[in-house]
């Protein structure tokens, strides 16, 4: 009997407690920087596309929502001819970001992407590409990779020794 009265009193004191509700459209909730929301493609500090079209993201994607086709420019630099993410299938698991060897594909703390038409949820490369480097401001894959492409020969990358002539006996 007394416990019933006590629980009624406890509930009554909740009148003056802080509300737990976040009044969402009026009041933005805080999302941590590593929140897994809308997927973007970033550029390196020189303003070039980071994506090298290795297909790892589309291979690891559990819902097969990423599709892309690789191509090369005249200097031998690989880039995707098209890059398409179907957000109506994406589950925002972030595995594409983990698989990406060049930090090109990244997830952002934006989740407001509702559409009235299902087709509008399919994002093309121009929708995905952003102007900045995203979470890794100084990283440039081609500057650290030992790959010869236009303007950079073998041994010219950062922290890379010049190539050894293996047919010479000289040390």
């Amino acid at each position: 009997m007394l416990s019933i009265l006590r629980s009624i009193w406890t509930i009554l004191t909740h009148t003056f407690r802080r509300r737990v509700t976040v009044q969402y459209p009026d009041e933005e909730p805080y999302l941590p920087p590593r929140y897994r929301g809308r997927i973007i493609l970033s550029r390196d500090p020189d303003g070039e596309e980071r994506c090298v079209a290795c297909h790892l993201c589309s291979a690891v994607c559990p819902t097969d929502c990423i599709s892309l086709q690789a191509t090369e420019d005249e200097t031998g630099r690989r880039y995707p001819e098209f890059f398409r993410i179907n957000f109506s299938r994406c589950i925002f698991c972030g595995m594409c970001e983990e698989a990406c060897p060049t930090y090109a594909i990244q997830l952002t703390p934006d989740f407001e992407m509702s559409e009235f038409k299902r087709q509008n949820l399919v994002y093309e490369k121009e929708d995905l590409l952003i102007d900045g480097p995203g979470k890794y401001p100084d990283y440039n894959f081609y500057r650290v990779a030992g790959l010869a492409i236009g303007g950079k020969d073998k041994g010219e990358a950062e922290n890379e020794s010049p190539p050894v002539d293996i047919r010479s006996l000289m040390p």
Partner: protein
Amino acid sequence: MSETLRLILIVFGVLVAAMSIAAGLIWFERRMLAVWQDRYGPNRVGPFGLLQVLADMIKIFSKEDWIPPFADKAVFILAPAIVITTVLMSFAIIPYGPNIQVVDLNIGLLFFLAMSSLGAYSVVLAGWSSNNKYSLLGGLRASAQMLSYEIFMGLSLMGTVMLAGSFNLADIVYAQRGLWFFIPQIFGLVVFLIAGLAETHRLPFDLPEAESELVAGYHSEYSGMKFGMFFVGEYLGITLISGLIVTLFFGGWIGPFLPPVIWFLIKTGIVITLFVLLRGSLPRPRYDQLMSLGWKLMLPLSLLNLAVTGAVLLVLR
């Protein structure tokens, strides 16, 4: 002529007020439950979410009103009408102010008890005519619950009747001029409050519709406005019981400064809030607990209250 007009005005005033309070309670209950659960509740539609009532009404009026092919059609349609009718009939006997009353029955309290007994038919018939085992179980529980709680519901009021010396609700209010009856009749109040909860099958005594066990109990098969009538009937029942508690134990419309009708509404509102608070804080008892509470605690308590009140009155006289 003016007397007839006044009566017609009172009848329609009571009808409109009761229906709009019952509709407003949908919003009020959701809002208050939210307050006690650290939420906000419906606050989007209109100021403070008040237009939620309108939105809910538009929704429930435009829903498909489906009658299952296996149901007993005539009874199925009749059942929700009974609950509204009987509850609205009881509103006729409550005095809302000096001389503001639909009918001044000298057996007013008995009329209310009779009407609430008839109200039990609505849930029983709804449970039976739905031809569904969950509905039937709900109807069964409702009939057993209402029969056993009606007995001491009536008995708990007899102390008040003895003090006032009348079944007439207007006389009972006038008898409370000096002292409101909740002080000498505190046990009567507690028993009547619990019986009222069971009569309107409100939480924590909502076993007839216990949604975790019986889908929705006796109104499982109801949809559209027929379900809405059960819904409104429940809120009308709360308003009625609150109005009666105020009339019988808290001096009805008696109060200083403010007009009598305002006093009545304020007191009724407080009791309605208490009903919502009880819903927010208490869990539903098991069925046998409900029955043993009724027969083993509430019935002896109301009998004792009756005997003691009678003895004290005899000694004083």
